[in-house]
Every structure is written in structure tokens, then in C-alpha cells.
């Protein structure tokens, strides 16, 4: 129904199928991720598609610091994803907790809950940064067959 999202699985898409989850950042990075996704032509060349269903995805872009409630959701999304899994922590607060480090209900970066492959710092990150990082990850994936 929505061309920006594909219904196919990661293998069928033959590249990276990205699912997006916001843990609780300020949205700044989320809107930049969306802005990235609007550059459809660039993404096609790199073989990146956005999917809605975590079980069809092999990459997760997550923003924001983890809290006690969304850590369960994040974990379940990660568990449902296909192997090999790639996780991108987008934004400073997803990397380390950032500005929210001393907030009462914040556990820290998303690596407190799931393993992260690529950290993209920046508050907010720029679309070019995201594309660059995903590109690096694809190279890594094809060289090693599997992320660390």
C-alpha cells in the first residue's frame, strides 16, 4: 500500500531491509531518518528498502535512549528480525544516552539492551551520515558475510 515501505522479505529485497523504531529521543533523528527515506533513488542504488514488519527486516535503525518500558519492545523487535542482523544506533542519545543521561527513567544507549553494529553520533544526525553509515555496513556485510 505504501511504496516507501515494502512487503517483501529481506532476501526478496536482495539487500538491506530496514525497520525503524524510536525508543524515546526527541524525534529530531527520526525525522531525519524519514527525510533519508524520501531519497528513494539513492537508497535504491544502495539496495536499501524500508519495511514495516520486523520479521521481514534484517536491519534496525533505532533512535533515542532506552527506558524501562520500551526495552521490552526493542528486544522483541530485535528477536523477530532475520539473521544476520544489523543494528544502527542513530543519534547521540541512542549511542550513549546523550543529553538524557541523568533523566530518571533513562537506562542509557540502546546497546544496554541489544548489540549495536554501527553507532552514528550527532544531535541530530544528518541524512548523509545515515546513508554513509548504512553503506559502510553493507560493505562490511558483504566482506565478512556477517556483521560482528
Amino acid at each position: 500500500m505504501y511504496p516507501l515501505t515494502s512487503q517483501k522479505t529481506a532476501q526478496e529485497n536482495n539487500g538491506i531491509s530496514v525497520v525503524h523504531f524510536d525508543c524515546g529521543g526527541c524525534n529530531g533523528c527520526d525525522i531525519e531518518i524519514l527525510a533519508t527515506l524520501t531519497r528513494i533513488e539513492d537508497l535504491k542504488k544502495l539496495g536499501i528498502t524500508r519495511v514495516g514488519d520486523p520479521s521481514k527486516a534484517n536491519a534496525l535503525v533505532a533512535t533515542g535512549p532506552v527506558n524501562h518500558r520500551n526495552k521490552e519492545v526493542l528486544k522483541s523487535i530485535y528477536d523477530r528480525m532475520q539473521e544476520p542482523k544489523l543494528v544502527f544506533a542513530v543519534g547521540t542519545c541512542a549511542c550513549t544516552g546523550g543529553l538524557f543521561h541523568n533523566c530518571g527513567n533513562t537506562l542509557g544507549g540502546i546497546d544496554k539492551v541489544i548489540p549495536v553494529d554501527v553507532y552514528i553520533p550527532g544531535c541530530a544526525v544528518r541524512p548523509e551520515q545515515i546513508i554513509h553509515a548504512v553503506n559502510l555496513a553493507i560493505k562490511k556485510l558483504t566482506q565478512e558475510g556477517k556483521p560482528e
Partner: protein
Amino acid sequence: MSNTQNISTFPFGPQDVLLPEPLKFQFYVDGDKIIKVDPTIGYVHRGLERAAELNDYRRNLYLCERICGICNVIHGQTYAGLIEKMTDTEIPERAQYLRSIWGELARLQSHLLWLGLFAEAVGNPQLFLDVWRDREIVLQLNEATNGHRIHLGTTLIGGAVKDIDESLAQKYFAELDKLRTRMDTWAVTMRKDPEFLAKTVDIGLLPKKDAVHSGAVGPVIRASGIPDDMRCNGYQAYGELDFEPITYDGCDVQSRVLVRLDETYQSIELIKRALKQMPTGPIAVKSEGFPEGEIVYRTEQPRGEVFYYGKGNGTIHLERLKIRTPTMPNIPPLLTMLTGDKKQNIPAIVHSIDPCISCTERITEIKEVA
């Protein structure tokens, strides 16, 4: 609910392609009619008000800007306004104008973002791409202003960190005119396209009376015919900008689209007018002393009234900072809109209040485990 045999339930969220942010609804439907809705929030709660008490009050400015990336500018301005009141700082007139200009630029960005997301939610992805392509103009203006696309960061307690010089002002005029012409090409789809209208007209009704009783704010209440807008209070430079709130009487999703669409045009006009009227002079003063006393400060965010309450005790730390953002009062009206409507209209109706969850999450319940 006496007759429960036909009622089925299904969840919407917390992770869904249509929801940029985690929010969960449990829907109870009879056939395709919505009987009841239970919203759940708490997925993005951070405990930010507590951190605001621990931080130096000057640092909180950057924390408040990061309550929400979409309306960051006005959050920063509201916090600065609150502290300026608490420390009796009078900011220069030019700074008031600069704040209004950047506040309107933020509104423009936010409304364009929403118009795009809404187009996608009603199944018109090409429109989404068009709107977002034009939104880039605003982001590039942000970048030209202070080097950042999202977090503008021009607010300072006591004024502004940057000025708009002649060449930047010319750039604003040129780019905004370009934006306006481009907007005309797709705005007509939102106003006239029968396919678009079929998904918005007479959907998600919020009659005038309900809008008042459930405490709606912002474009939601203005789309129910009530001219409620904090900017009418004339804070910053709005008193001198000859400002009239935009209202529509349809009380449906389409009216909410039209209110926001007209407000984007209005914002362009307000920015241009403010740039022309802006007096010369200094852009900041030094704010002396520590915040003291209890103050309430309200401004108009793109989504409605934002309410800041601060309590200071003359030290570097605030005793209390309470923030109520516009999505919170718009949730009860949302439940009114959804109840009795059809299942297939859920995405359009949920989007019509422009929910911003990262703004809303100010409270959480802590359960003691024995």
C-alpha cells in the same frame, strides 16, 4: 457494553509503519465500528523534568529544546521566556522579533512535516514526497541561519545568539517565495482532490461543544471553529504583527488539514512581515541573578498551547519545572473522534491531532515490587 459477543479487539502500535513514534491503542470494534479505545503511552518517557531539577538552570535550555525535535525552537523560547520572567530580564525588541521569526519558521517546518505524514497515512505517497521535498527548503534555511538542520539553537536566555543580517534576510525572502509557489502545486490536491477528500471529509468529528469540553488545543480546536491561539496574547512580537487565528467550522479531519495548510501560508507571511518591521538594535542582554518565584509561561506550539511552570528558589537549580505539551490535552478529543467512527479511518483520525509523543510523555507510574 452490554452486548459483548460481536465485539472484537485489536491493538495498533507501539511499532507500526504509520506511527513515527511508539504509541499504543487497544481498539474495541463491532463490525467496522469503533466502540471504545484505550490509549497507552509511556514508551518514550525519559524523566526529563527530574533532570531539569538536577541541572544548572542555564543548561536546561538545551534539554528543553530536546523535548521534541520537531518543535524544538519554541520549546527553547518558552523555557528562555520563563527564566527571563523569573529573573526580571527584559529582552531587546529585535530579539523578540527574531524569536517570532524563528518560531514561525519552526511552525512552517512542523506543519509541512505533518501534511506530508498525513498524506502518507491516507495512502497518497507521492504527495508525501512532494511535501517533504519542499520542506527541505525550510531545513536549508535553518542550516543557513545557524548551521543545523533540525536543532536551530538560536535561543539564548536574554535574547538570541544570532542576528539576521541583510543577506540572510534576502535569502529568507527568496526561499520563502519559492516555497510558496511550490506549495501551490500540491495544496490544490489537499483542497480539491476527490480521492483525498473522500478520506477526510466528515471523518473524525469533534463538534464545537466537545472540543471545548474535552479541552482541545491548537489546530484541533481551531478546526472546530474556536479561535483559540496563544499568539493572540501578543507575546514576543506577535502583538505588532497583525495576527488573526485561522479557523474552520467543519469539525472533521479535512478542517484540520485546512487549518494547518492555511497556517503554513500564514507563517510565510508573518516571517516576511516581521523581517520588514524588525527594529535595529542589540539582540541580547545579560540575564542577572538566579530564577526566583513561581511563574507560568505559555506559548503557541505548532500543535497548540504549551504550558511551562517553573519554581525557583534563588539558586542555580530550579525547584520544579513542569511542562505540559499540546498533545496531552488533545488525547481526550482524539478518543471522542475515534469512538463511533469506522475502523478504516483510524490512521487518518489518529494523525489528525498531529500526535507528538516525545513531547507528551511527562509522567510515568512506578510500581513498587515487594
